[in-house]
């Protein structure tokens, strides 16, 4: 009986010390980690919408963090099924007091191995300006090429359409709204494209609402 108590006590002591050390390290690294993720976010916004000088939140309850979920599920009844996608963040890119475009951050839930999170930039005229992948866990060398091989994502850039479609026969260059799938990674290609279509639907909604930013900037 004594042995059990002694063993348990030693294990408890080790666990306690480990817990305290981990708490200390967490506190030390908390700030740099938060800084890094904020930096990554701002850099991602800038990467997808180079025209904007700064990025501001949108002054409309509909696009606040709490309401985005219900707002996106209202989009789901339209022509395409967006149920696997989640919009986590919508900001407006501002230049000279005017909105020059929007950045929509999407979590596409139907990737080949887990969620793919990315930011999408759309100019105020509806032109697609860029994509930046924030987190992706697809198979290295296959689905991962969505991030590493720029030829897939560059197909979207500069195009003004309502909806993109993935094709597998290599005919992507024949039409603006057709996107060549990544070879061997149709699931990833479709997940990303569907996420982008969700962002386009959000964009149309933003335009029809004629939104303003918290700083008072508007499209007109």
């Amino acid at each position: 009986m004594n042995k059990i108590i002694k063993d348990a006590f030693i294990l408890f002591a080790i666990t306690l010390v480990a817990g305290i050390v981990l708490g200390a390290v967490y506190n030390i690294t908390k700030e740099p980690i938060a800084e890094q993720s904020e930096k990554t976010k701002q850099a991602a916004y800038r990467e997808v919408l180079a025209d904007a000088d700064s990025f501001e939140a949108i002054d409309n309850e509909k696009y606040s963090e709490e309401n985005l979920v219900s707002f996106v599920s209202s989009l789901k009844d339209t022509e395409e099924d967006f149920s696997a996608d989640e919009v986590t963040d919508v900001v407006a890119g501002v230049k000279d007091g005017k909105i020059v475009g929007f950045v929509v951050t999407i979590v596409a839930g139907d990737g080949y191995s887990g969620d793919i999170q990315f930011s999408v930039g759309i100019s105020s005229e509806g032109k697609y300006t860029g994509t930046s992948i924030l987190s992706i866990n697809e198979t290295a060398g296959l689905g991962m090429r969505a991030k590493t091989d720029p030829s897939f994502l560059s197909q979207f850039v500069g195009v003004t359409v309502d909806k993109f479609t993935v094709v597998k026969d290599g005919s992507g260059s024949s039409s603006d709204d057709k996107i060549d799938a990544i070879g061997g990674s149709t699931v990833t290609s479709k997940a990303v494209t569907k996420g982008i279509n969700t962002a386009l639907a959000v964009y149309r909604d933003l335009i029809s609402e004629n939104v303003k930013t918290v700083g008072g900037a508007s499209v007109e």
Partner: protein
Amino acid sequence: MNKCVERIYNGLIKENPTFVLTLGMCPTLAVTTSAINGIGMGLSSTVVLVMSNLMISLLRKVIPDGVRMPAFIVIVASFVTVVQFLMQGYLPDLYDSLGIYIPLIVVNCIILGRAEAYASKNPVMPSAFDGLGMGLGFTCAITILGAVRELIGSGTILSTGSSALVDFTEMGFTPASIFILAPGAFFVLAMCIATMNRIKRKHGMKPAEVPDYIGDAEDDTKEQ
């Protein structure tokens, strides 16, 4: 000090954790799709391995036999989490490319294996060097695996994702994607082990030796 050098040789060649002991197969097969991934995974495992061997060897007289497994796991998991926090805060690029594989270091059986087989029975210095040797052996092995798979499967050498040192696909080489998928890992691993055994046999060694610490670990301690 000779013992420390012997430990590094032991980890790199004689008891290479991947090619001889075939331990830690999960990260070996999963992350070796490129040489850079192999280096990153190998070095972070080495850091954890050295620190956990050191700590476990220090505590080897304190930890009771009955609860040694949970105690080892707590120590290993703590070091892995520390490495993960530090990497996330200060080396975000490496953290991004290794991602979910960092927590997996906890369940890498090389680490628990070395804690159980060596560090818990031997003095601090040899244990730390045992960790270093094993870690470097692991790093070399998975870097070789990664380099071969990357060369055949993606047609590149030392690719970091966006840029590569040499890109054979631009010279008309069609990569065999199967080599960066799971089966390719087994093919290349089998070839590497066969080559290793062949070289060993040439030098008059048995292909796979019974580790010498089994059975005489107690004597090792007395010698010190």
